[in-house]
């Protein structure tokens, strides 16, 4: 657009442009409200106690952090936080180590039936979790792994590993091939090329994959709810929902909301800090077929 005074026929165009951008702002505001208002209401609820919890005040008239104190003093909640960290870190680490090797072979090396293998691996990510949880429930009861952390980490791999392989494969494909070619010319073996050249270059992709797998494992609910029963093995998502009141009808919604806010804020920060990477990971491979 030039800075010159608009010719008469341009004026209508500019007016239209203004209404277009007006409509756009309305949309932007709607999207922002829809995304954030529910979360605001969760925080609002977490700041209320007693009578406040049965009123729909838009701003708590007597905001209090007592729900947060209750949650942080609850030893079962702290225990579940520890369990979640152990389970998510272990499953993510194991999945990433196994997946790095597999993904490199699938992305770069000569291998028969590559497409079939990738399709099989991807199909596992769509398995309904209950189809894994049900047999594991019976098996772990027989083997004594029911209600233990290892008994939870193992079935978490069912979904963590194929997801890691799939995302990593698309990251490895993006690394320019010339790098390996020149390594070969220098006399490196394919494994050396992988280990010394590609792996260091793929670190950002591996980190992104690790974040996404960690979120998947941390988030997943059906396995821990089926395979654990005591606070010693429960993970955070289950522990929150089992925060019970004195009676069935007295759900301590204030404390539940506070616990929800506590575990959501670190995750929101991680996602916002790494948003570019996470977006690239989520959409990785999606357009290359």
């Amino acid at each position, binding site marked *: 657009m030039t800075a010159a005074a608009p010719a008469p026929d341009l004026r209508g165009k500019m007016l239209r442009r203004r209404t277009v951008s007006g409509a*756009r702002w309305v949309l932007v505001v709607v999207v922002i409200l829809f995304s954030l208002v529910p979360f605001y209401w969760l925080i609002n609820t977490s700041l209320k106690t007693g009578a406040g919890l049965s009123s729909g005040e838009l701003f708590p008239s007597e905001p209090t952090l007592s729900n947060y104190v209750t949650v942080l003093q609850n030893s079962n909640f702290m225990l579940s936080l520890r369990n979640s960290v152990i389970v998510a870190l272990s499953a993510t680490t194991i999945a990433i180590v196994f997946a790095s090797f597999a993904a490199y072979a699938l992305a770069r090396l000569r291998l028969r039936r590559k497409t079939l293998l990738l399709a099989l691996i991807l199909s596992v990510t769509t398995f309904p979790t209950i*189809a894994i*949880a049900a047999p594991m429930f019976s098996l772990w009861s027989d083997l004594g792994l029911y209600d233990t952390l290892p008994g939870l980490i193992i079935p978490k791999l069912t979904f963590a590993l194929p997801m890691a392989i799939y995302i990593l494969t698309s990251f490895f494909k993006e690394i320019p091939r010339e790098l390996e070619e020149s390594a070969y010319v220098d006399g490196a073996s394919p*494994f050396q090329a992988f280990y010394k050249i590609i792996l260091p270059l793929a670190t950002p992709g591996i980190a992104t994959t690790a974040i996404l797998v960690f979120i998947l494992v941390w988030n997943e609910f059906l396995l821990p709810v089926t395979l654990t029963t005591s606070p010693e093995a429960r993970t955070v998502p289950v522990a929150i929902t089992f925060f019970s009141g004195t009676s069935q009808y007295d759900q301590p919604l204030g404390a539940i909301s506070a616990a929800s806010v506590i575990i959501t804020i670190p995750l929101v920060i991680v996602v916002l800090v790494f948003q570019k990477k996470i977006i690239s990971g989520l959409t990785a491979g999606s357009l290359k077929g």
Partner: protein
Amino acid sequence: MTEVQERKSRRRPKELARDVAERRLAWMMVSPSLVLMALVAAFPIGYALWLSMNQYSLMQAGLSRFVGLQNYVEILSGEAWWTAFLQTVTFTVISVSLELILGTAMALLLNQAFRGRGLLRTVVLVPYAVLTVVSAITWRTMFEPSLGLVTTVLNGLGLPGGDLVWLGEPGYAMAVVILADVWKTTPFVALLVLAGLQVIPSDVYEAAQIDGASKVKTFFNITLPLLKPALVLAAIFRTLDALRIFDLPFVLTRGANGTETMSMLAYRELRENRLIGEGSALSILTFLTVMVFALMYIRFAGGNLRDEAKEK
């Protein structure tokens, strides 16, 4: 390609040796993962199949007898499975449709150049970062009688529905579950569609503009067909995920008021009623349902995409 072939013919013995070594290495790198997946994915499904063909004593642990397909016959001739099946499919069709429409709208918005776009993209990621269980709790606080924002707003504006116990009424309870799912996963769809939008070359739009096509026409005749791969992919991911939904309705209603899904029914039989055979049969049926949907998608979408690739 020709260069590679040339090189191949020149240094054939060395190339061949490397080829063999490379294939062997590839298998060595892939097989640990394949073995692990066989152990944690294939084996449990097989074991579930075996469990589903047995009946287990409730009185004496470990006592069981082989009953073949009897569990399946009983489940399929009963009502509970079909109710859960229909409710799950209803949930899936409505929520995935809404997510695709709203996700596309959101992606179109995010694809435009305007100040504050970065902020908007950050904001829409917040629901994605929220745990599914937390998003269920969040929407419970929204619809709670007297405490909930929805109730407060409806009452404040004098609109009907202020005294409605949303999660306590069939239909309304399902609507809240769908709303919570749409809130949580629309950003994911939007990101996939946005990635699809960004690979559409801009000269297509310039050509349309020169031809004087309206914005609406441009969207339906140019953008939408070019977005098809991204949309199909998002639809597949979301459908298969929605069919196994468990946590949202579990936290919102515990399956009451017409919100029990296939996974929840299997869980109830297995965990709460301790019916291992029936619970396993139900989880196998859930598994088969998801696989049938997956095959249908591959059949239709896969064929379509392949035709398009050929045309290009």
